[in-house]
């Protein structure tokens, strides 16, 4: 399959997220998830990368699922401490739904790996989003790994000064992490100023509009996706609300 247009990717993410948020039935959610995985793989995203991403979210998802299960109990109690129902059948199902929801959104986001941030910006611009917003998000994306690297390096630097972060008490740990934020934030602001200057020196904002070195053109497959996906989404939601 040819790589889809970035606008199609945005549409896919929007449709899938909508279904994920609105549907509460476990088997339907699971089907949406499975369909998303199949579609995204067919579009070209690697399955191994997808699994890796999902693994990265596993602990958060399990935690949220557990919280859902504990704090919104429903139905037969499965595990209880005295009179407190810790895990209930209904709660467990709710937790499973949350897991599937998040997994579906993560899977749909994997499709964005098929394009570059420049492609995404072009997609947003051709969807009439003001280019300043599109650029801001792309620059943020570009610098997030830099900030995370800086943070990690500074944590290493603290350890290199003889502070065993893993062994110190929590209060000290928090104090250290807070003080590390200061140079990272300072660095971020400094970079932002320098970058905005560099951009103006390249005539950014010279005119209210800007042109592009390439334009996205929708292919036949893209039109098919754009026709089919909203219809499919509407059909699934109708089925869910009316028949279930």
């Amino acid at each position, binding site marked *: 399959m040819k790589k889809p247009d970035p606008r199609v990717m945005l549409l896919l993410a929007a449709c899938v997220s909508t279904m994920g948020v609105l549907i509460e039935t476990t088997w339907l959610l699971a089907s949406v998830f499975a369909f998303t995985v199949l579609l995204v793989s067919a579009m070209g995203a690697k399955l191994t990368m997808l699994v890796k991403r999902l693994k990265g979210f596993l602990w958060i998802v399990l935690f949220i699922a557990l919280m859902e299960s504990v704090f919104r109990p429903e139905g037969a109690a499965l595990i209880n401490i005295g009179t407190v129902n810790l895990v209930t059948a209904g709660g467990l199902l709710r937790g499973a739904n949350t897991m599937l929801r998040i997994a579906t959104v993560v899977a749909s986001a994997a499709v964005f790996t098929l394009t*570059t*941030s*420049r492609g995404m910006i072009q997609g947003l611009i051709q969807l009439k989003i003001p280019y300043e917003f599109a650029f801001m998000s*792309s*620059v943020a994306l*570009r*610098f997030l790994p*830099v900030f995370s690297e800086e943070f990690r390096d500074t944590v290493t630097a603290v350890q290199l000064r003889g502070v065993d972060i893993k062994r110190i008490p929590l209060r000290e740990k928090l104090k250290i992490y807070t003080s590390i934020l200061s140079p990272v934030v300072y660095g971020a602001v*400094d*970079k932002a*100023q*320098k*970058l*905005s*200057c*560099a*951009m*103006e*020196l*390249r*005539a*950014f*904002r*010279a*005119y209210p*509009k*800007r*042109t*592009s*070195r*390439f*334009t996205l053109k929708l292919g036949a497959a893209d039109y098919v996706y754009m026709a089919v996906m909203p219809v499919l989404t509407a059909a699934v939601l109708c089925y869910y609300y009316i028949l279930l």
Partner: protein
Amino acid sequence: MTALELQDVSFSYDGKHKILDGINLRLPEGSVTAISGKSGCGKSTLAMIACGVIPKAVLQGKLTGRVLVFGEDISGKEIYETADKISMVFQDPESQLFAPAVVDEVAFAPENLCFDGETIAERIDAALSTVGMQDFKDYPPNKLSGGQQQLVALASILSLEPKIILLDEVAAQVDSQGVALLQDAVRALKAQGKTVLIIEHGRVFEPLCDRKYEMREGRLYNAEGDSCEKR
């Protein structure tokens, strides 16, 4: 013709200590000039004033005197209004490059100037050829060496086709290989008749320059050691 002229330029951040004190400088079109000096002597400040970064982007401080680009006073103009005449490359590539690929980086400037796709493509090719980076079009800038990143930063302003190019300590964080690449790029700019002003403490570009100045405590001194103050 005089490409860049600074007339009696003085600048201070706090109103007391003068970073620049009565600078008079004239760069003829097509010349390659170096300004050297210790760190903190004011040479980078001079470059930032020449292209309008001070006072337009850096808002603190008091600037007096005039900056003329091809005879026109730039004080009333925004940085982006004069960018196609005078532009600058800084020391740190990380704060100048933000696009996912080299070609996107170099396309940024002509896109801002609303050129059509064909013109943009031509300018990209010309800029990358000048710096010798045509083979790296699709590379992500962060995977390049320091010297190569600086070349991309240079190409990304060359696509504006500015007549005056300021290079502020561009070789400071670059290894000897990168320095050689940058020297080649400056030679190419010279051959194209561009006016180049190089700020550096390292004297790496000196062999390529027509004229040399030294900055000491906010004042410019020419090769003979004479102060370039207004007489």
